[in-house]
């Protein structure tokens, strides 16, 4: 026997898991993590998982996190690319879990590109 509160709790828990299945093409933001051998050995997995967790806990329905292969700049991995419709692609390099959180908060939610993590910013 479940109470109404139980049903609501199940709904909230499940909704966080199921955002993966929404695909609203029109204004979808895509975050792509390089997950080839180079990316993974440089620590792409925790980055990917952090991005997924952030997107689902914040219920960002129009944001999709996915993986890609090697981008050819293995020394800069983990690399995260952000595609916002109507804007140029943004590429972050040497991302870690903490930076991933900042990217979600500043760039995805508030629309401010994290210039300090951009490719080329370090050099």
């Amino acid at each position: 026997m479940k109470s109404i509160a139980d049903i609501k709790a199940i709904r909230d828990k499940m909704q966080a898991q199921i955002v993966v299945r929404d695909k609203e093409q029109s204004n979808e933001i895509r975050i792509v993590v390089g997950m080839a051998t180079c990316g993974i050995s440089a620590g792409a997995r925790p980055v990917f998982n952090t991005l997924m967790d952030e997107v689902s806990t914040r219920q960002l329905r129009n944001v999709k996190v996915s993986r890609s292969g090697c981008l050819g700049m293995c020394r800069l991995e983990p690399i995260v690319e952000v595609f916002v419709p109507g804007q140029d692609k943004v590429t972050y390099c040497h991302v870690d879990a903490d930076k991933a959180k900042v990217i979600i908060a500043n760039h995805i939610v508030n629309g401010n590109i994290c210039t300090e993590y951009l490719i080329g910013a370090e050099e």
Partner: protein
Amino acid sequence: MFRSHVLVCGGTGCHSNHSEEIIKEFNNLIVSQGLEKDVQVVRTGCFGLCAVGPVVIIYPEGAFYSKVQVSDVEEIVSEHLVKGRIVERLLHKETETDSAAVKALSDTNFYKKQTRVALRNCGVINPENIDEYIAYDGYQALIKVLTEMQPQEVIDVITKSGLRGRGGAGFPTGRKWQFTKDAPGDVKYVACNADEGDPGAFMDRSILEGDPHALVEAMTIAGYAVGAHQGYVYVRAEYPIAVSRLQIAIDQAREYGLLGDNILESGFAFDIEIRLGAGAFVCGEETALITSIEGNRGEPRPRPPFPAVKGLFGKPTLLNNVETYANVAQIINKGADWFTQMCTERSRGTKVFALGGKINNTGLVEIPMGTPLRTVVEDIGGGIPNGKKFKAAQTGGPSGGCIPAHLIDTPIEYESLLAIGSMMGSGGLIVMDEDNCMVDSAKFFLEFTVDESCGKCTACRIGTKRLYELLCKVTDGKATMEDLDKMEELCYYIKDNSLCGLGQSAPNPVLSTLKYFREEYIAHVRDKVCPAGVCKSLVNFSILKDKCIGCKMCARACPADAILPQTEIMPGKKLPYLVIDHNKCVKCGNCMSTCKFKAIIKK
């Protein structure tokens, strides 16, 4: 937390194409790759695009793979799931793009013009997992009804939405609920018609297979509204997957206390049982269905009294179709106004159709009422295969009529279809092209009703048989012009005198083809030809002697030894040509499909 969801269609269509083995293979390979914590495999209901099944869709990319074989799974796992590279060779053609991303399914022609209300969860959730249904706002309407609304308010919302029965007749649902509520009596029942006897139709099956909780929730709401505590779902035993998923849904709902004695601690009691039918068309008729649930032979009885007054076990009974119920929870959640927006003046909401026949995208589609037939055939259906021409579409199955090519812009809704002599029906939509003979198609449906007539009333039992015989006379080339008039008269006799809707509507396919394709009937009668070349008695195969090279391939293919070589050799040929003996020919057409030189013609 799963980062990837692999959705595999488990509808009957894909199931019979081995989707179950595909699921197993995915699970095996995912475990052997150590991805079981990252990737979730979900068996869903029908996606609708049955023509390209088995289908698999992988999120978050939304990659839509079609015609997937068990042997393809390894590549999908190692490429897509492990390396994140989409397997382009398996992508459904329409979703391919130039960039690395894939086009969303909702942007393809097939889905773009559809509006999914009754089918909203089909192909989206795992129908055997109540939590997934809840995630998509499942049981929210039931909570709202039990905590915030009086039964009369529930009925008022349904009435205001303008929802009409999706089982065929299109009776206003709110009024039916009101009648049942107002009928005197302490004990009342709620029943669901999931008999779906219309040949080629599979809308209700797909809802049961893809979103069974939607039915459980709606019937419980209906029970609350009309004052019933017991529900019955009458479903044919020929739908084993639907039956088992519905039973799982009922069990899960009981476990969660969403069915039972004290639903969500509101004090309201309701439960549902499944009753299996043996698959007789007449048992879809409401009074026959009720008789069958009671344990008797499924025969109709005259109305009134209507089931809302005197139904199951003599008690007031609300009977609605599966698809009708599938709209209810969403109307409660989103309000009557939301529903009326998808509409024409008298037909609200959407309608699901099982698209079949001569059409590229065979499958399940849901369109807003009032969508022109042309949109369904040309855009959603992807047109007619092999560059053939659209000739007609049959809606309403054996009770319906045809829509000829010149009326292809007719909006699909109850009244406009009735006006042109067809009907909405329960949702079968069969497309015919120039190779279909309209007399033959009418004969097909009549043969069906002759078989399915229960025999209780004479007009239907004998009338449909005689009508069928007259149609055979036409297709045999033995009918006279008077026979056509006799046929029409008999049609009206059957319609006027039959006991139930089966007989009353059985002549419709004949009447509507007589109306729109009379010249085709006349060609059979007067000229003794079948213009489409379908009716065997009226077609003759012959060999063009100047094209025949004498290879004898046709003679070898002939099951009746009806093709014999001559002695004369045509100029420029090395061997004597062949000739078909029309006395022996059984008109199977094997010779014509065997001949590589197009030397055999059908006339």
